[in-house]
């Protein structure tokens, strides 16, 4: 049996299992709290696993392992930003949001403001961030499945994207937050299991001598000691000052973006209390941190055992480094059959990874459309639960269909920058609005709206006029050149703009309610009046 057949069988088992769970979850999805927040009945441990499942995208599993395999140490910089970011969520956001919000990020922002303009801004930002992230994952899915299953024709890749999209729509439309959360839990367990297994085999192969493994990776890379130091990919000496500032800019967006990502924020609503929200972030940090330590071994292991040339020959970005490593280490220890089995397992885990993340993104964006834009902006709050859930399901279907279409159109385009852009928008627009809302007495509608639109617009505009869109060989439009902003990552400029816009906007407006500030402050810190969990 070839590894493609085995991968397909394992993946179909995952699909069958998760679809079973989804339909089971749909029977317990009765009202809006069930659909949007899984009845707030998940435990801290379950939600911690789901946080890991939602956050560890193919970009972090395959992407970071690939960057380390090809460019050495620099991939580790990504991991560290992604991890440290969780402290912002733990200390400043998770519990307070759980106590004062209901279903979406906008619930917290609109709490003491004029609801319609704030919900419109938050909804636009949520949908923009989620769609960017979703599109990057969809395009990645097509390329990845092509490589792993040997599907090379454009039609085959398009069909793969349709398949991924249809499954994601089914998870979200049928299972709501309950179904999606279970898919993420199953995926997190499989991903951690698969990554741990390959890591142990690689370390075992080198006699559990990390220094020996690193030395072998450095030698095989042909770059020597520089392979184990920062500077081969980000802020290289050849790029000069702009490259180094770009690295700082990327670091800022990574560390401040996570606590503003809507699909992550809505996870805090799925647990019964703020204490459980805290516990879930602690578990999430443990799982995500462990995972990035494993990725370090996977990346250097791939450099040592597979070698950069072989990886580059399969994929320019190195996305297949981890599956190739699984095959190489399996073969070295257990022979050909072992290699085939391990490759199939890791490939199936990679598909599961993509599915769980795209489902979370579709849920976040469709929830925001239905709850923020439809129910509160268009209908001014005059809707029944039933109508709102129906709209949420329809919008999940529409967003899924749009993502499939765009994913097929963007096949072969270099859209990896969309993930970094999603983090930049989240850090520049959403985070300032959230932090000011929770902690600044004099914050108001004008401040929230200026922070979100200011951060969103500055991040978008700077990226459009950056080298990732035009004016370089690797740009989205390599033939054109309208780039005047020298950095690929806008964060170092757009994050201060977002915070400043929020500050100025709030100071220019006289709106202020002492009563409402007292309410959000007391509720967020004590949990008085917090939304309760439901059980059926």
């Amino acid at each position: 049996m070839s590894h493609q057949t085995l991968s397909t069988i394992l993946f179909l088992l995952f699909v069958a299992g998760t679809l079973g769970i989804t339909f089971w979850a749909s029977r317990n999805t009765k009202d809006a709290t069930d659909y949007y927040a899984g009845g707030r009945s998940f435990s801290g441990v379950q939600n911690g696993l789901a946080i890991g499942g939602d956050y560890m995208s193919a970009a972090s599993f395959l992407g970071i392992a690939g960057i380390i395999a090809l460019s050495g140490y620099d991939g580790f910089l990504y991991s560290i930003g992604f991890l440290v970011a969780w402290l912002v969520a733990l200390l400043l956001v998770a519990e307070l949001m759980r106590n004062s919000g209901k279903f979406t990020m906008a619930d917290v922002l609109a709490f003491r403001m004029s609801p319609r303009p704030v919900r419109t801004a938050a909804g636009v930002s949520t949908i923009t961030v989620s769609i960017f992230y979703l599109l990057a994952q969809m395009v990645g899915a097509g390329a990845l499945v092509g490589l792993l299953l040997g599907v090379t024709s454009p039609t085959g890749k398009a069909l793969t994207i349709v398949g991924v999209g249809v499954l994601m729509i089914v998870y979200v439309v049928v299972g709501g937050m309950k179904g999606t959360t279970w898919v993420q839990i199953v995926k997190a367990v499989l991903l951690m299991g698969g990554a741990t297994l390959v890591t142990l085999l690689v370390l075992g192969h080198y006699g559990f001598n990390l220094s020996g493994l690193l030395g072998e990776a450095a030698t095989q890379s042909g770059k020597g000691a520089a392979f184990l130091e920062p500077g081969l990919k980000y802020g290289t000496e050849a790029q000069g000052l702009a490259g180094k500032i770009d690295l700082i800019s990327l670091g800022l967006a990574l560390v401040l973006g996570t606590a503003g990502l809507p699909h992550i924020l809505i996870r805090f609503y799925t647990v019964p209390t703020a204490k459980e929200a805290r516990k879930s972030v602690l578990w999430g940090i443990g799982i995500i941190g462990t995972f990035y330590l494993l990725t370090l071994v996977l990346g250097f292991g791939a450099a040592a055992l597979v070698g950069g040339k072989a990886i580059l020959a399969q994929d320019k970005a190195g996305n297949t480094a981890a599956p190739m490593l699984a095959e190489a280490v399996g073969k070295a220890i257990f022979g050909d059959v072992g290699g085939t089995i391990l490759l199939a397992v890791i490939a199936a885990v990679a598909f599961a990874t993509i599915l769980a993340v795209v489902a979370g993104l579709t849920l976040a964006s469709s929830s925001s459309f239905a709850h923020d834009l439809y129910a509160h902006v268009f209908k001014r709050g005059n809707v029944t639960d039933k109508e709102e859930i129906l709209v949420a399901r329809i919008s999940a279907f529409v967003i899924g269909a749009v993502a499939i279409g765009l994913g097929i159109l963007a096949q072969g385009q270099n859209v990896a920058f969309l993930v970094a852009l999603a983090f930049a928008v989240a850090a520049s627009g959403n985070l300032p609005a959230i932090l000011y809302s929770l902690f600044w007495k004099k914050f108001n509608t004008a401040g929230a709206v200026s922070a979100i639109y200011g951060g969103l617009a500055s991040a978008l505009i700077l990226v459009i006029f950056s080298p990732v869109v035009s004016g370089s060989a690797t740009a989205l439009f390599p033939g054109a050149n309208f780039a005047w902003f020298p950095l690929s990552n806008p964060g170092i400029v757009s994050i201060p703009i977002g915070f400043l816009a929020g500050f100025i906007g709030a100071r220019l407006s006289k709106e202020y309610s002492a009563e409402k500030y007292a309410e959000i402050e007391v509720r967020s810190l004590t949990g008085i009046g917090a939304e309760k969990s439901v059980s059926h």
Partner: protein
Amino acid sequence: MTASQHDSSVYEEIQTDERFQELKRRFRAWAFPMTAAFLAWYLLYVVLSAWGRDFMGTKLFGNINVALIFGLLQFVSTFGIAWAYSRFAEKKLDPLADEIRHEVEGKTE
């Protein structure tokens, strides 16, 4: 019980309560400086990765260099701060928050 059952004056009353002010002070006095500290520690790491490459490339033992240890220390500090926060919250924040909440919810139920 939902928020709508409390009128806003209840919240303003709690806000001026000494115990609530103490809860807010304890939370902010821990969370705000700690956030500044871990962000500064992280930025130091990123800045050294950009401009301190000779230092980061210093070999400590075998093929293990400063960059790797510095990176791993970011993991250690993240795990450590998360653990310390949960201990602090359980001991210093939860009892006060629970006390205030139970009192208010007892009154209205």
